[in-house]
Every structure is written in structure tokens, then in C-alpha cells.
């Protein structure tokens, strides 16, 4: 652990340099995340006739404003990096370092967060100017739980991408598998459809699945549609998934590496 602590500043510097190198690319990727704005327009038209499920125009605006931010805060692109490294063999070089390559990726993706927020800022300002009613202030308890649930959401997103990326140790289908995951994720995470608008049956089923924990939970805590006092069960489910994914990633990483070594690489 001591050795890791000493290596951390240098690792972080290298990782951040990597982020800065691709800043233009990253800016485009962030700007291309327009779906929350499109969904805002669509749901805005839905509630124009009158509030639906307790959401009026400003409720919808707040929800998707928060979606835009949480999506950036939980932005992870591990899948493409990892499956590319495994398939091309460039993972071998990373394995020579004393730290786990996944750790390096995690650092890089965390260090990209400030940059992501800087690129997002102008959009948020324009958005807030167009829709002043969406500027709200959360209570300290909301902020606290928002930060915790966002951190766990980030970890779950990272863990899922690590798992699917590691499929590349065995098969060449990681991208396709992720496409399937992403299709479900768009529908079930609250990204396109806020949970309040889902039928009761779907909401009950999705409560137990990992999708909600990656996005909707922090959003609902932050915007206040889920009171902090009632968030216990949701946070518990999120914790269970976080832990389960940590174990699964560790186990699959060991088996994947064994397979990778046997490969002659």
C-alpha cells in the first residue's frame, strides 16, 4: 500500500497528461451527449397539457438538467480502452507496471471529470438562462447523499464496463455485448424515461436491477423527487451491486489474465 501511495502522484500526472492530449476529442464526445436535451424537449411537450405523475415543466427541466450533469460525472470509457488493449496485446506492457492497469484507467477517467465539467459549463449556462425556473438549491443532506450515490454510480458503470470489456479475453464480442447492455440501460436507467413515468410493474422490477443505481438514483436524490429519508432501500441495492461488481471484476480479472498468459502474449 505504501508503494502504491508513493506512485500515486506520478500515476496521476501521467493519466492527466493522457486526458489533456485528447481534449478536443473529449470535448466533441461531451457535446455529442445531447440526448438529455432532446428528451427534455419531448417530455416538456408531454407535460405541456398538465402535470403528469407530479412532474410539471420545471420538474422535467430540473430532471434532465441533472441528467446532463450526472451523465458527465459518471462518464466512463473503459470498455473501448480495455477491449482494445486486450485484443491488440498492448495490455502486456501495462502489466509490467507494478500497479493494476485497471487502476490507471480509473485514475484517468476520474481526472477527466474537471475537464468534462468545464466543457459542459457553457451548455448549462445557456440552459439556465433559457429556463431560469430550473435553478434550485439542494439541502446539505441532499448534497451529501447525491455525492455518495454519484460515486457509487460511477463505480457501477466502471465495473460493468470492466466486466464486459474483459469478455475480450475470451471472445471478440465485447462491443456488441455492450451495445445490448446500453440499449437496456437507456430505457431502464432513467436516462430517457424518468422512473415516475414508468408503469408500476416496470418500476418494481427495475428496483432490483443495476440500471437505476447508475443514474436515476443520484438524479432523484439531487432534484428532491426522492426524499433523503426514503432513499434507504435504493442506496442499499446500490451498495449490494457495487460490492458484487467489485468481487466479480476481481475474479474475472484473475481468470482473464490466466487465459491471456496462456495465449502466448
Amino acid at each position, binding site marked *: 500500500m505504501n508503494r502504491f501511495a508513493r506512485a500515486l502522484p506520478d500515476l496521476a500526472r501521467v493519466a492527466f497528461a493522457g486526458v489533456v492530449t485528447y481534449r478536443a*476529442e473529449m470535448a466533441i464526445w461531451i457535446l455529442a451527449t445531447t440526448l438529455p436535451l432532446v428528451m427534455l424537449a419531448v417530455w416538456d411537450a*408531454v407535460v405541456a397539457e398538465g402535470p403528469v405523475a407530479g412532474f410539471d415543466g420545471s420538474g422535467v427541466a430540473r430532471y434532465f438538467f441533472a441528467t446532463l450533469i450526472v451523465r458527465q460525472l459518471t462518464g466512463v470509457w473503459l470498455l473501448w480502452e480495455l477491449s482494445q488493449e486486450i485484443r491488440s496485446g498492448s495490455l502486456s506492457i501495462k502489466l509490467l507496471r507494478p500497479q493494476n492497469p485497471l487502476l490507471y484507467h480509473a485514475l484517468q477517467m476520474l481526472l477527466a471529470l474537471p475537464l468534462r465539467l468545464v466543457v459542459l459549463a457553457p451548455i448549462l449556462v445557456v440552459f439556465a438562462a433559457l429556463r431560469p425556473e430550473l435553478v434550485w438549491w439542494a439541502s446539505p443532506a441532499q448534497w451529501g447523499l447525491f455525492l455518495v450515490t454519484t460515486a457509487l454510480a460511477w463505480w457501477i458503470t466502471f465495473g460493468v464496463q470492466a466486466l464486459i470489456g474483459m469478455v475480450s479475453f475470451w471472445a471478440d464480442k465485447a462491443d456488441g455485448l455492450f451495445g445490448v447492455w446500453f440499449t437496456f440501460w*437507456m430505457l431502464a436507467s432513467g436516462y430517457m424515461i424518468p422512473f415516475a413515468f414508468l408503469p408500476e410493474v416496470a418500476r418494481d422490477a427495475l428496483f432490483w436491477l443495476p440500471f437505476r443505481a447508475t443514474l436515476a438514483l443520484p438524479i432523484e436524490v439531487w432534484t428532491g423527487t426522492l426524499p433523503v429519508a426514503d432513499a434507504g432501500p435504493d442506496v442499499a441495492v446500490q451498495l449490494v451491486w457495487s460490492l458484487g461488481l467489485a468481487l466479480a471484476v476481481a475474479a474475472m480479472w484473475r481468470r482473464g489474465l490466466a487465459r491471456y498468459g496462456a495465449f502466448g502474449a
Partner: protein
Amino acid sequence: MLVVGALARLSVSTALAYRADVAFDLGSGVLKALGRVAPLFAIFGAAEVVGGWTFDGAMAVMGLFLVVMGIQGAFVEPNLGAAVEGIRSGTLDLWLMLPVDAQLLVSARRVAPGALVDLPVGVAMVAMSAVAMGSGVGDVLAATWLLACGTAALYGVWWLAICTSFVFVRVDNLRFLIWSIADGGRWPSDVFHPAARVLLTWVVPILVATSWPAAALAGDWTLGTLGAGGVVAVLFLGGSRWVWLRSLASYTSAGG
């Protein structure tokens, strides 16, 4: 005998691998198409009319979007990748020497059948909503014309994106940006802010291929709309052709 056996095993396993691949692509393609349609039900579960559009109208928009994406994904997008690679690697020089128009050659090199899954799903959705809305023959013809105009104009946009690769090395990101903007076209135009509508008509003309024909199916079209569709198509096709020829004129080949 051993060799023959090994070869046979190899070819069978290769075929099996491809079959599994194709099955996987088809399966995930169907899933993705369904995933695109599902939000429509959630939205119209919450309201009868959204931005002045009924469920049938919005369904037609979504179906047309799938048709456009199927065409783009199967016929245009793979060629774009090849063209960009060709410009970067210098293969373009070879294409230019052939006695066929290079734009035509580059535009028709590859097909990605996996993306075609969207097409039948989209056509079925459009047909269902056209029946539900009681579209006449004239409406269908008008919608077809607008769809053709919009698709042609979108091809022009992709082609313009290709032309930028004479100047910039990485245009993958630009293509990605255009895809993500075009994604707005799966919703009826009236939900958008007027500025966004201008963007989706005159910069990335997806609405011409989705919302306009859908409105036409509901009988909401005039000769003016048909003319406007033609103008957009001519502008983008002509513009991209002009930029392509200009780019070629100043292109000094891979060696220069």
C-alpha cells in the same frame, strides 16, 4: 487425409463462427430497434397528444427514422469509413485513376447488412401508422418524395464530412457528432425549440426525412413543402459535390 479433415473442421468452425456472429448481430439489431421504439409507448402512455402529434403520427416519425438509419447504416456509413481511410492512407490516388467517378466509386464500395434490420421494422411501423391515419395515395407519394429528398440531403451531409478529412486527420468524431444530432430526428419536429428545428432542417436535415414525410402521411403537405424538400436535397447534394470537386482540385495526392 489428415489435412483434408483439418481443413474441413476449420471451414466448418469458421462458418459456425460467422453464423454465430450474424445471429448475434441480427438479435442485437432487433433489440436495438425495439429499444428505440419503447420510449414512444412510455410517452404516449402519459399524454394523448404530444406537441400536436398523435401516437400514429409520432410512430410514423419513429418508423421513418429507423428507415433512414437503416439506409445510412447499411449503405452510407461503412463507405464513409472506407473513404476516410482511403484519403488518409493514399488509396484514394488509385480510385482517382480509375475511369469511373471517384465519388460514385467510394460511395458504393461496401454494405453492412447488419444495419438493415432497422429497415423492415421501420417500414412496418410506417405502414401501420399510415393505415391508422387513413393516408391516401397522394399522401403516400408526397411522403415518399420527401423521404427521398431527406435521405439524399443526409447523404450530402455525410459526404461533406468526408471532404473535411482532406484537411483534418480525425473525422470519426465529426461523424459521431452528426449521428448524435441526427438522433433528434426520431421525435416529431414540433417538440423542439425553433432554433433546434432550424439546425435539424438546414444543418443536419433529418427532419426532412422523418417529420416532414410523417406529416405528409397525415395529409399535411402542400406543393410548397414538396418544393422545400427538393431545395434542401439539391442544396446538400450540389454543395457536397462542389466541395468534393474543390477538395480534389487542391488535393496533392498522398505523396505531395
